[in-house]
């Protein structure tokens, strides 16, 4: 399959005072095939959003490569970078604060075209109208209104409309539904699925909700404290998680059914996320892992294949 994005040895570090560094993303690699949806999951602070932003070059990676359609974005500067980046668009978590409150909807959604194309204002609004219809908004009624007059779900539709104006190939969605009600969340997930097939989009879907991620993803990658733990086809990952952290995450998801037996507490995560300034040696998960042994502190487990397409970074993978 054709690769559209290849992230290689990506490292993002922030300075945290003299001699201290925040290890936000530590040496992660993954690739996205054209047309697939990769779910990126993990707890707050695991580096999943930083990864998304570093791909966009909104945060400059400390080292590593981000190849998008063959070009390494980390080596591009100013104009060239902005040009290449038209192919990647982003949707953010908070739909209301990611829209400019002082602008009308038609101008928010038309802005990408105003910047990048030479078409007339009338043509631009015509395209905006088409896009409004596509994401399920009434153009006549809403074009001259401002974001605060709309609900969270509608604002997220507007963000989606804006992100598609330049016909991107890759969409990075950073927790696009976590601020929404469950009924609205279903609407947005269904819309993303529809648009994905219509525009043959590739999606990097960053979220903490494993059930949401399962619904939309072909493959899923699990991050913990800046490291990649496990990456696999989504069905495989959910049926036979190999990393103890993936297992713990899955067990913590509440099932909306009182007749499903409560999962045993054996895999419940105890304790707190360690500091990213001074992460544990060896495997970063070892301080909270029920199966941790001496080697886990001494040697960092590499991400390796345990079956075709299923990679895990653990000395003692399950199953």
């Amino acid at each position: 399959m054709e690769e559209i994005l290849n992230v290689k040895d990506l490292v993002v570090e922030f300075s945290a005072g003299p001699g201290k560094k925040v290890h936000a993303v530590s040496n992660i690699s993954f690739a996205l095939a054209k047309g697939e949806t990769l779910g990126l999951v993990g707890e707050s602070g695991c580096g999943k959003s930083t990864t998304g932003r570093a791909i966009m070059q909104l945060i400059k990676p400390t080292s590593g490569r981000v190849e998008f359609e063959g070009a390494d974005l980390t080596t591009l500067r100013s104009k060239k970078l902005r040009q290449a980046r038209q192919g990647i668009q982003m949707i953010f978590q908070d739909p209301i604060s990611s829209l400019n409150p002082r602008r009308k909807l038609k101008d928010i959604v038309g802005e990408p075209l105003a910047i990048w194309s030479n078409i007339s204002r009338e043509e631009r609004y015509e395209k905006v109208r088409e896009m409004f219809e596509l994401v399920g908004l009434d153009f006549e009624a809403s074009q001259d209104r401002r974001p605060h007059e709309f609900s969270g779900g509608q604002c997220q539709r507007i963000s989606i409309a804006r992100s598609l104006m330049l016909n991107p190939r890759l969409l990075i969605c950073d927790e696009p539904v976590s601020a929404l009600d469950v009924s609205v969340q279903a609407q947005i997930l269904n819309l993303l699925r529809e648009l994905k097939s219509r525009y043959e989009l590739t999606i990097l879907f960053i979220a903490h909700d494993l059930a949401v991620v399962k619904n939309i993803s072909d493959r899923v990658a699990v991050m913990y404290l800046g490291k990649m733990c496990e990456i696999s086809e989504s069905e495989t990952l959910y049926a036979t998680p190999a990393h103890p952290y993936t297992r713990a995450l899955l067990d913590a998801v509440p099932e909306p059914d009182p007749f499903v037996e409560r999962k045993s507490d054996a895999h419940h995560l105890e304790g707190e996320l360690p500091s990213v300034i001074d992460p544990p040696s060896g495997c970063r998960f070892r301080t909270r892992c029920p199966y941790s042994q001496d080697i886990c502190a001494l040697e960092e487990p590499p991400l390796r294949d345990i079956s075709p397409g299923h990679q895990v970074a653990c000395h003692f993978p399950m199953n």
Partner: protein
Amino acid sequence: MTDVRNGPLLDVKSLRTYFQTSRGTVRAVDDVSFTLESGSTIGIVGESGSGKTVLSRSVMRMLPKAGVIHDGAVLFEGNDITQYSNEQLRGIWGAKIGLVSQDPMTSLNPVVKIGRQITESIRHHLSIDKAQAKEMAISILKSVSMPEPERRFSAYPHELSGGLRQRVTIAIALACGPKLLIADEPTTALDVTVQAQILDLLSKLQRERNMGMILITHDLGVVADRCDEIAVMYAGKIVEKAPTKVLFSNMKMRYTQALIESIPRLSAPSHVPLRSIEGRPPDLVGTPAGCRFAPRCHFADERCRTQEPPLMRAESENHLFACWNPVGGMVPPPKEVISRLGITPIREDSILRSN
């Protein structure tokens, strides 16, 4: 405060809270009744804007003075606290009714050490000295499984993670040993792993202390295995109420069904389109006649749009629902309107609808 109880811990009767705004009267809570026994948990579930948070504030009487219209009664340990003065209310807030709110960062004071935030209510209600209060606070921090409680006593909120901060707000709510704990979306701002820890902690403390608990959430997954009873709210009203297992196995109200079907499940395969509820909850100003869910309901007919369904009893005793076309058909005949709830006569105000 005399305890004149021979009823439940909390008995909410036909509670109404309306806000007067420039746009008109917002019926945020409209004729809500339920009871809660010590040691049991009721889950209140609904979308944003369904009135669940206003309901919890109304039960506590923690509402702004201006522009609010109340009606109905809240019997707490047999006393109607809607009749209480501010001073009487201060005597039960924190002491007998504890509140855990959604966002632990905004509900804690950022410039006060957490120890003092816990001892504040202990010293206010229990009149004990500083050293004893500190000892008590540390033991409460221990009981909410705070690691290193002695050190954390002098920490500021920003030094703690979201999960630990929520443990602090739980400690504050429990400091004086309340009889009733209201948890308003206690885990919405937290990670799924931390959510499981906090919910386990709340259930454990509730059992140990035999408290009544109101657990408010938009997530049916959260209430499914932690509540004895669930009330589903829509547009200011309870539209279905039943013991948890009855609700999940035999839901009647179309809204409850739609809500449950829109949840993505771990057990479902990938790429299955989700059932969503189109449209939005109605404007609570001048709500239309008929069932409030009718405009979004696939099963709505003429009657649904003109006549409001009352709360009716399903086959089992404790199961109430408000729907003209319930899941599985209408059993028993729709004439049987519930009187057991003690729906009180409504004041004949111009604002309050008479039915």
